[in-house]
């Protein structure tokens, strides 16, 4: 959705960062002393979620810049680190939990790049691999059109080797490097082209079948466009990741998802994009799950969507999940398909339990933090 209204905290002093956003949006900001003005403006709409997507609020992050992924009880988490640079999204996916997560949902850009970089320096100093992502509360690359932050973050992670806090090792590679993961459904990659990224940025795409993209992922790039952008990034030397999340179960979904996998790996002569398995750091799988209040929002905002009418049960974390045998059956099909093209590629589940892991992947990262360590190893293998 196009940003139509721009608010900015009146106490924020104009700087290069804010001037860049104002220029790119082409909007004259309305200066506000209190965020309540913005929230009231959004809430006054008949559809605050849509209004929130069209309303950009330049403000400051008064909370923590870096957070650990809260995960969920009873299901295994990958120990992701969240870099909190903004909230909400201009795209309009029916299943997006952010619709129910923020009250009200507003597109917020947090100024203060120094604060972010300072927090990252602290992270780099810990001599530990962190997988850091900006795509938890927003899409990482919707901002690329109006902000220089994504490109600056890529450079920041690339330079971590020369940080005064980190000791370079003999080969020039690092012990326990951290990586930035930019997770997106856009194709906004132009500003990342000529950056010396030092392979410390993973550009990740959330993938789905063309029918789900068409019916449930409004205003997002097509599957073909996403994979074409991924191929470009591969050619620019970036490491890639793919997230099949949410996997949606519908008649014929297995063959559709297999076709998506084929499109990733098959070469151009076979109609695929020929992405090399060694360029891919990981692929995650997660079937659609949602907090119960999201169902009403989907029904109200996407009346033609059937996504909430799957065979859902209440999971152990009180989120709605597909009946477990259905999840396992789909995972088995997809894992098997990925293995055909990339037998050694790290595939993991986002928020699944032992039974699902064992029946779909043949093992379970039982120890605390074990999944995170698997992913860290993949970072060492692919990003150094």
């Amino acid at each position, binding site marked *: 959705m196009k940003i139509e209204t721009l608010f900015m905290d009146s106490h924020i002093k104009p700087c290069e960062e804010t001037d860049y956003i104002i220029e790119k949006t082409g909007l004259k900001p309305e200066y506000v002393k209190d965020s309540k003005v913005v929230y009231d403006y959004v809430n006054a709409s008949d559809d605050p979620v849509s209004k929130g997507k069209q309303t950009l609020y330049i403000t400051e992050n008064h909370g923590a810049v870096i957070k650990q992924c809260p995960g969920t009880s*009873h299901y295994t988490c990958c120990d992701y680190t969240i870099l909190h640079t903004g909230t909400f999204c201009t795209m309009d996916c029916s299943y997006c939990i952010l619709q129910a997560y923020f009250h009200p949902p507003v597109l917020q850009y947090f100024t203060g790049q120094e604060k972010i970089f300072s927090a990252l320096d602290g992270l780099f100093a810990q001599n530990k691999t962190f997988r850091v992502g900006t795509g938890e509360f927003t899409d990482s690359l919707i901002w690329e059109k109006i902000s220089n932050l994504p490109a600056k973050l890529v450079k920041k992670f690339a330079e971590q080797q020369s940080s005064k806090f980190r000791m370079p090792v003999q080969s020039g590679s690092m012990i326990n490097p951290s990586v930035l993961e930019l997770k997106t459904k856009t194709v906004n990659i132009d500003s990342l082209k000529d950056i010396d990224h030092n392979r410390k940025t993973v550009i990740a795409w959330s993938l789905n079948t063309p029918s789900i993209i068409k019916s449930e992922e409004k205003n997002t790039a097509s599957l073909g466009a996403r994979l074409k952008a991924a191929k470009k990034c591969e050619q620019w030397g970036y490491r890639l990741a793919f997230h099949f999340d949410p996997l949606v179960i519908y008649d014929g979904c297995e063959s559709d998802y297999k076709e998506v996998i084929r499109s990733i790996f098959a070469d151009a002569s076979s109609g695929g994009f020929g992405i090399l398995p060694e360029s891919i750091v990981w692929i995650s799988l997660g079937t659609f799950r949602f907090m119960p209040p999201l169902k009403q929002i989907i029904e109200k905002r996407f009346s033609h969507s*059937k996504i909430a*009418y799957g*065979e859902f*049960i*209440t*999971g*152990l974390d009180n989120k709605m*999940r597909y*009946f*477990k*045998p*259905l999840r396992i059956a789909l995972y088995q099909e997809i894992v098997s398909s990925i293995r055909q093209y990339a037998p050694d590629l790290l595939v993991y589940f986002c928020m699944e*339990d*032992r*039974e699902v892991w064992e029946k779909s992947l043949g093992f379970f990262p039982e120890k605390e933090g074990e999944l995170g360590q698997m992913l860290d190893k993949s970072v060492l293998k692919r990003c150094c």
Partner: protein
Amino acid sequence: MVNIQTVMLKEIISGEIRQKTNIKRVSLDEIDLSDETFKISSDNISCHNTSSNNNLNSVNTSFSHDAILADNPLSSLASSINSIGLINLPVLIKINSNFHHKGQSSSCNKAQNRSTFQIICGFRRVQAMKSICMADTLAMVLEYDKSHAVLEHDESRIEPDDKYLRSINSNVWSKDKHIASNDSDNRVRRTDNHVDSMDVETYACCAILAITDNAFQRPLTVMEQARSVLLLKRFLCVEDIASASYAIFNSSMNQSVVNMLGDLAQMDESVHELIEQERIAMGPALKLKSFNTDEINAFVTLFSKIRTGLNKQKEIITHIIEIAAREDISICDVIKSDDIREIIGDDIDDNKNDNTNWQDAVQDYKAVDDTSKSADEKRKKSINENSKKGIDENRKGNLVRALLFQRRYPNLAKAKDNFAINLRNLKLKNDVRLDPPVDFEGRDYTFTFKVSSVEEMAKKVELLSEIGKNPLLAQILS
């Protein structure tokens, strides 16, 4: 800012209105029974009854009162009035004698034109008195004089920007027009012959009297509350109705409840009847408000054949909506499916194929494997047996619910059926119970048993040990 509506409301509620009423003897022929504008009560006396009762006026008065009472739905009230007299007087309002009756025949007009009083409170009392051929009655007569001060708005008390109040008269009448237009689609059953001749203060006063008269004698039913809210919404906003609810309804309502009642009042009369028959609760009924007439009729037919509690009603409606969405069929198709008709005793429509039966319907939507087949067979057998006996409405409700669950969650239902079969085959003794994880999401199955002594505990341990060797248990746990 003074809220003039609240001021008006306070004046009415404070009882000052009583100063404007006089006790008078009124001829019953002068009372217009056909105007139900202020009728709140949910008794079953419809306009038809009113008409037939009106006809009693022409009955030869030489008939004995007892003979008339025998066929009268108001017989106990009439009998009481006849033998004890009227304890609470009806409240009437004197109306313009040259009012125009909407939608009534000329023959009716002749009789109606004699009427000069509209009923605010006491519809049943007046009907009862007419049914025993009484000629007149004492009544509290509201003689509203607009020049009198009580309800007269003092312009100086109105804030200049109180646009709502300034437009209140026009709002009332525009809403009346709206309601009149809705009459054609049968959403409002009450006739309101005299509303056009009333100003808003008089109308407000009458409406509040009508509601409080009922609400302070007994709790109002949901539909009575809904009708009351509809009356009040003509001159009060939702916020004011909620804040005045304790004084008017004898119970507190928040704005959300007021809104729901208002929505309910606008729904189809067939839904109102279901609610009055306590076949559907307000919450589930409101879920139907966005559906078209055919869909509502299908739901109404279904709920008129079954009886379930509130949560099950919600579940049934939700499952029907979601099955329709999942299977890309209409809601009517789901409700009119052969298997549901088989259960409820079918007369949803006239297109039923008599050759279809439960077995065919089951086969249509479910691939039955060997293990679940026996569960289906049992269900089918149970339904067939029950249909012969004429199963009661509660059981029909449970069967419809089970059927819808099976169709909405085919894999989960099948897993539950399989577990039930395996459990039966495991032949646990009565005092040992095995429960699966909820919806088979977790991995922990639960054995439950009771012991009252160490010896009994030892026996149970032995028994569990035996069960542990049964390959069926391994099958269940896998």
